[in-house]
């Protein structure tokens, strides 16, 4: 499944909520959709989920236009909104059964489908509980289960981690990893950037309706930096290592921090490999060698200005 957001625009009068947004992602990817409040994230997600119509542009799911063929798109998309289910007098199982019916799943298959979703999202124990008696974390799981009930290829999740306790967040993260492993394409917005950075394969940063950065996480986190920062720790004398490193080509700077040496390395992945190979050849007993990446949080603060329209 390939999702292609094509020059999407959504204007409300003079306000450009979404202004020429384009990006793509595919099955198995988890794309973090990041931006300050009012940046246009929810509007973009609602358009992808066919709940809003763009002023211009379109979204294609394997070539199926959400504007032209919303009925076909409905079957491919699972949407988790930023608000939680609040139906009264209905149990978790009945709620999921209702949506399974709403997606046209026949009686013969429905029971099996709902039960497997309940099992997958760990809802079996609370299936007979009323929705309005559930905690936020449980409601969140129900919301995800509802979005999965028709086995969509694309999952659009708008702030699913908002207000969740640490345990619920960890469970959600694990769930997303499993779903991604199953080949679902996931677009997720969240303000908790550290967590996004842990699970996302790509990210799109948006502000005032326009994309500021988009790409694979490794790409956008390193794109703005002139060099790579690498942390090296060996069992040998750090002073010796420090001096040796300063003599190597591509090394722009080296700093000793306790038993570790931090170097600024010009060049790409090849240069990293060459440096590691040199250390091993030279007989250093390397126990740690890793690139220090700029965090998503740092990048977000650098590229956004916190402006709203």
């Amino acid at each position, binding site marked *: 499944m390939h999702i292609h957001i094509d020059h999407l625009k959504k204007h409300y*009068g003079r306000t450009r909520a979404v202004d020429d947004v384009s990006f793509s992602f595919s099955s198995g990817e988890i794309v973090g959709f990041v931006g300050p409040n009012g940046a246009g994230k929810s509007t973009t997600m609602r358009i992808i989920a066919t709940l*809003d119509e763009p002023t211009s542009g379109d979204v294609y799911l394997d070539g199926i236009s959400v504007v032209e063929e919303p009925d076909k798109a409905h079957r491919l998309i699972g949407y988790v909104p930023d608000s939680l289910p609040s139906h009264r007098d209905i149990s978790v199982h009945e709620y999921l059964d209702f949506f399974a*019916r709403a997606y046209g799943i026949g009686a013969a298959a429905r029971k099996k489908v709902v039960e497997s979703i309940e099992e997958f999202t760990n809802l079996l124990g609370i299936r007979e509980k009323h929705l309005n008696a559930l905690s936020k974390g449980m409601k969140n799981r129900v919301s995800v289960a509802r979005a999965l009930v028709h086995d969509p290829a694309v999952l659009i999740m708008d702030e699913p981690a908002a207000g969740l306790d640490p345990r619920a967040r960890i469970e959600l993260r694990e769930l997303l990893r499993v779903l991604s492993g199953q080949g679902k394409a996931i677009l997720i917005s969240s303000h908790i950037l550290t967590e996004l950075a842990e699970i996302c394969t790509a990210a799109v940063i948006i502000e005032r309706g326009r994309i500021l950065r988009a790409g694979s996480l490794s790409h956008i986190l390193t794109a703005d930096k002139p060099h790579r920062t690498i942390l090296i720790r060996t069992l040998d004398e750090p002073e010796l290592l420090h001096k040796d490193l300063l003599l190597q080509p591509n090394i722009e700077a080296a700093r000793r921090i306790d038993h570790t040496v931090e170097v600024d390395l010009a060049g790409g992945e090849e240069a990293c490999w060459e440096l590691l190979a040199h250390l091993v050849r030279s007989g250093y007993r390397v126990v740690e060698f890793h690139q220090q990446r700029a965090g998503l949080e740092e990048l977000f603060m650098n590229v956004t200005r916190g402006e709203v329209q």
Partner: protein
Amino acid sequence: MKPTPLVDKLDNLLNPIVVKELRQAVKSRIVMSALMLFLVIQLSILLLNLSFGDRQTGNAINLHAGREIFQILQGILLGTCMLLIPTYAGVRLAAEHSDTNVDLLFISTLRPRGIIAGKLQASVVLILLIFSACAPFMTFTYLLRGIDIPTILLVLVLDFLVVLLSTQAAIFLGAVPANTGLKLLLGLTGLGLLVSFFGSTMGFSIEMLDLGLGSRLDSVEFWLIAGAAAIVILATIGLMFTWSVAIVSPPSANRALPVRLYLLGFWLVTGAVAAVLARYFHIPFPLYIWQSAIIALLCAQFLVAINERQQWGLRVRRTLPRSRWLRGPLFLLYSGSAGGILLLVLLAALTIALPSYALEYWSAAFLPAFGRFAAETNRRQTLALVLIALYTFDYCMLAVWLRNVLLYERIKAANTWVLALILWALGFSLPWPILFLFQNEELRMGQIDPLCQISNPFSTIFTCVMEPSANAQNFCDACLLILGGLGLLLLLGCLPWMVRQVNRFRPPEKDTPYPASGGSYAPGEIEPGA
């Protein structure tokens, strides 16, 4: 027990909303408490009447006991149904419509029509449940004398239709997207409607019971009136159903198309019913009632039409034919402000002109019993309707013109109706302080020139229709001239706005090719600020 394939097939045919609503109703403490209370009250009243009724009147045999108890039981049935079911359906939909629940239904395979139909069907099941709980008690009244089975059935049918109408009205009000304050206002309006429906239905059915429906069942007149009433009630339920579907449909959908098509059908069917009644009974009133009701409906629709979209999204535009001749009628029917205005003006003109013309020139066929008073009554009726239509047109078009020319984009198109209502309120109230300041003496003496209050529709219509003097006639002519002239000016003022919409109402220039599967770029390849 394992369900059979037949059970599965039947299960698949059920509307999911009905299943959900009924599951919720069964678990709802309110519904169950009301049902139990209803049964207890009915049983108590029947027992009390049986135990003490005859002793109080002092009669050995009360020949009206059945009818008297039936009236009480019917009141309880109607009261319970009208208080519980419409409120339950309306409040639940309003609560669901306020968050994302309804939105989520739209990304399922359910259609807006299915959602509203499900709500109505679930309510029908609840109505039938309560009616069936009441049936044994009502049948028992037959044994107590004073009422016959056909009368019981007819009153129950009438009650059922009225409860259904009230429920659909409540669903419609519940579907209206509004903030808490407006929802509260709509709730109070709905409650007022329910009370008035309850009062009028009870009054009507008590009168029918006293007159004795059973003896009239073989008359054509009875069935003609009953049939006409049923058609009108069902058509009104259908109209509100269509409105509700349009309201819950996504904004990008062509929401007005089914409403306008239904409106045309409603106009034709109810007009035909009114014509048949007028022709059969040789009285003009069915046509007058039809004209008045339709003009009121069109005025309300006009207030909605001025808020509609002025441009169309790709989803709608791609359904338009390339031929201009085919697009013409669609412009009137598709969602869109200018098209709606034109259609409603056309319908209003026909609504006023056709019956007035028929009553004027074919009075022998329609009104032999109505005699020479027909012409004057006809003139007054037509005049009143023309004035109502002109005032609505002028105030609404003034709002459109102001929004477009003076307040462009400061007021959302969707809020034009508020501007129209403000203008109407100003027109109604402003003449009074002005007259108080500048013509105080004349105001106290009651010698104000009625033209000074021409912005007040009530004053104008009252003077024109109720006062038969020659002065009033002159005033009327002046009013028609001024209001008609203003309407024409406003139409000309809004003409560029309408023409822009006509120009936009066309299919896209060329079909955008869909990118193939596995598109050309991944996130990493997108330029910053794209």
